[in-house]
């Protein structure tokens, strides 16, 4: 099953709607609730990142019997130092993002804790792709 959603820069009101939709799909597929929660927590953090830090992008999810592969592909500006961004507490968030209850530098570390495989590729000026895979059984 392939799902695809567009994420719009700065659209904080709808931030989480892709995660919400994927959550409903996984529930309908009778995936274990603990696994569903890990997937959606990771995806939601990544979705908020794309809205808050990037110029929007696309969320895709590919689900098969054994796993879900989620990609959040944004349109830039890219992360100059991924190792720095992966450390808890490091953040470049705007005051607006902090007012939403995010921006404490916990997003990428939270994602890492919840997924079985994480791959972050980024090119400054082009964009970032966060690829997350979770085993469904």
């Amino acid at each position, binding site marked *: 099953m392939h799902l695809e959603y567009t994420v719009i820069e700065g659209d*904080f*009101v709808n*931030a*989480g709607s892709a*995660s*919400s939709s994927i*959550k409903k799909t996984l529930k309908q597929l009778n995936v274990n*609730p*603990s696994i569903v*929660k890990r997937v*959606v*927590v990771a995806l*939601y*953090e990544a979705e*908020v990142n794309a809205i808050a830090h990037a110029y929007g992008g696309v969320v895709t999810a590919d689900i098969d019997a054994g796993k879900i592969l989620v990609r959040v592909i944004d349109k830039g500006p890219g992360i100059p130092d991924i190792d720095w961004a992966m450390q808890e507490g490091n953040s470049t968030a705007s005051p607006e993002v902090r*007012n*939403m*209850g*995010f921006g*404490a530098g*916990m*997003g990428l570390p*939270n994602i890492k*804790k919840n997924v079985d495989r994480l791959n972050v590729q980024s090119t400054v000026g082009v964009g970032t792709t966060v690829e997350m895979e979770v085993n469904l059984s």
Partner: protein
Amino acid sequence: MKLSEIAKVLNAKVVCGQDRLDEEQDKAFASDLMSDILTLGDNFPMIVTGLCTMQTIRTCEMGNLDIVVFVRKKKPTEEMIELAEDEGMVLMECDYSMFKACGLLWEAGLKPIY
């Protein structure tokens, strides 16, 4: 502790989920930081927060956290209440500070998750 008792202790107004007030809840977690709320794993405490935005509701939806108390006189918008109703959540409005609300809940017997 019944949710109706929690509302009474906090002198809180229940803005949605009135049909669930006979349910029990024995744990709470308080934070204004949504990323903190997303670290709770398989714990499902009641959430006490002063952050009152759509993201509060979304974050709780993602975490399967369906009882939320807004402190510091924060009032959820119609849009937030609508989403919370769709998700079957209980929302309460409390005029007390976070510190006072948590103190009263602790005194009434609610437990932390860590």
